[in-house]
């Protein structure tokens, strides 16, 4: 069978299950493959692909790859992808994986973790934060920690550093459909990586800050490879790393989730995090929904902020009028202009505020999304 090269999501959607028959006729072993499917948090049309779990090398799998007692804190599907290679002969009898889900985050978790005594823990940074906040000292003393599956915030990283000061934190850049793409080294900061072996990374059309769309080339199975495939993430190249490699890159965010270009402005999740932190006495949680709306012949940006108000906010600003003005005044959407500036110039419509009781984040916190 000739290898299929895919460059677009439509091509991948059409060819994702190529090679399935080699498992069904017994010439390939099922446990070395995964059916990776979903649209993640992107809201894009879903896709399904067969993925070989050993391309590139397995040591870049998170969590339980090392023959240790591990805890992979990911979605169930990702947990299966972490664990199933253990069915092979390469893992020793000390290899274990503890299956935890969000329903286990209760008053018993500390005792269960103490009983399990993990040697390695890996997962979404937000899920890791939840677990480590319940962890006994014996678990906080862990030496190996992996993060991946979503961008790490400064706050989450600082929390994990404080809670487990002895842990070597390894960050992996990966997706369900592609598997591992990048791996941190001791010299890189959060969200900075080197490509893993077998993967090449390019930054397409970088802007004045060097940030552009990330393109990935990688074999997915023996029969299908990605070539300059747009991941939907934004990234920039970094200068030569202190480790000597010159291929480091930094993820700026998920295009349309950490980073939305709209109506001539750029909305950054980090900027909203900063402003919301300054107004934390009024805002317990938030989500920004950005869209473009046509006003006669011109496009305008429209930003809706869904807010879980604090008791103080409910008491002092039940309509959200003051809060909306403050948020627009404080939030920079270009290097020199705030959202309020662009509203005055009619490039954006007035900021909409919606008060809600709860924002459901599930595993990943999605604070910024495009409608």
């Amino acid at each position: 069978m000739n290898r299929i090269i895919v460059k677009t999501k439509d091509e991948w959607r059409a060819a994702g299950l190529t090679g399935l028959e080699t498992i069904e006729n017994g010439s390939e072993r099922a446990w070395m493959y995964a059916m990776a499917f979903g649209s993640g948090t992107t809201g894009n049309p879903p896709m399904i692909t067969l993925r070989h779990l050993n391309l590139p090398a397995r040591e870049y799998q998170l969590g339980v790859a090392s023959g240790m007692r591990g805890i992979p804190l990911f979605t169930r599907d990702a947990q299966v992808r972490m664990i199933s290679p253990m069915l092979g002969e390469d893992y020793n009898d000390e290899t274990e994986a503890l299956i935890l889900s969000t329903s286990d985050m209760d008053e018993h978790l500390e005792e269960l973790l103490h009983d399990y005594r993990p040697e390695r823990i890996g997962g979404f940074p937000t899920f890791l934060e939840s677990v480590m906040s319940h962890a006994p000292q014996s678990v906080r003393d862990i030496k190996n920690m992996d993060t991946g599956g979503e961008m790490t915030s400064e706050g989450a990283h600082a929390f994990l550093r404080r809670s487990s000061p002895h842990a070597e934190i390894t960050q992996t850049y990966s997706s369900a459909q592609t598997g591992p793409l990048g791996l941190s080294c001791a010299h890189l900061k959060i969200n900075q990586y080197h490509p893993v072996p077998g993967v090449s990374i390019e930054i397409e059309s970088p802007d004045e800050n060097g940030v552009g769309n990330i393109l990935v080339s990688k074999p997915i199975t023996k029969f299908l490879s990605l070539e300059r495939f747009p991941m939907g993430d934004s990234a920039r190249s970094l200068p030569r790393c202190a480790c000597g490699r010159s291929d480091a890159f930094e993820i700026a965010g998920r295009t349309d989730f950490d980073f939305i270009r709209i109506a001539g402005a750029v909305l950054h999740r980090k900027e909203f995090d900063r402003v919301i932190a300054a107004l934390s006495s009024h805002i317990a949680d938030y989500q920004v929904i950005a869209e473009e709306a046509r006003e006669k012949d011109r496009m305008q940006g429209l930003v809706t902020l869904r807010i879980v108000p604090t008791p103080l906010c409910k008491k002092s600003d039940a309509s959200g009028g003051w809060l909306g003005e403050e948020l627009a005044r404080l939030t920079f959407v270009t290097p020199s202009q705030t959202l309020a500036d662009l509203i005055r110039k009619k490039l954006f419509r007035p900021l909409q505020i919606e008060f809600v009781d709860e924002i459901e984040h599930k595993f990943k916190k999605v604070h910024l999304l495009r409608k």
Partner: protein
Amino acid sequence: MSNDLSFSELVAWARESGLSSFYRDHWNHAATNSLPPLAREKFAAVGLRAREYKKKKGIVSVIRVGAKPYLWKWALEDLQGDYLRSGCRPLLLFSRAHDAIEKPLTLFRKNILALNGTLSNPSVTLFAAANYHIDSVLADSSTYVPGMQMLAGVLDSKQIVERTVFVESGVEFRSLPEQEITHLLLSLPETGSIARLCEKHHDIFHAEPDMLCEAESGELIVTRLARLVTPVIRLATGIAARAMECECGKKGFVLA
């Protein structure tokens, strides 16, 4: 997992273990033919490592019975459930994390690639199920009915040749439309599949090949004839059951 292990051989293995004294302490010199049953809650009183009778790579799950949850380990070599007989492209729909991990691993061992679906994201699950051309469904009592309703919109029901549903109690069993179901398995996370609903007499369960089921006391007490990480020997399941002869000629029990 050995299918020819006898009860007395299993008990001797557990008695003579150099790794764990869990059962020795519980049995306290009782004769093999009069071993006291063990309540599931007893596992919570003893840590995972003190209940390990062998060291093998595996998965560890959180089990919630009674007030205090406990950890339970399955060695990967012991994952051998007979979940599918003709299907080869299953969709899994499970509410509990343990099932959502254990079932695909068990199927992998039979070289079957499972699709792990979810009811919480139906559009993506339906897309994947349709594109994978699923031919079978594995579910639990809470996901089966909504899962089949979800699939009805996009799949021809004739396409699904095998439907396997796992229950943990009589209440769960009676909540299901059993006539649609190909295999109905009574199962607990510590034991794996205990018994299978008779294909001819649709009230009676028959023990799986390596299970011993006792229902004379009104409670189902089970032994798995296998050298598990923590062996299951006369486990008092908390499941109300009554022994019954089946018209098919095999011994069985009904769930109360």
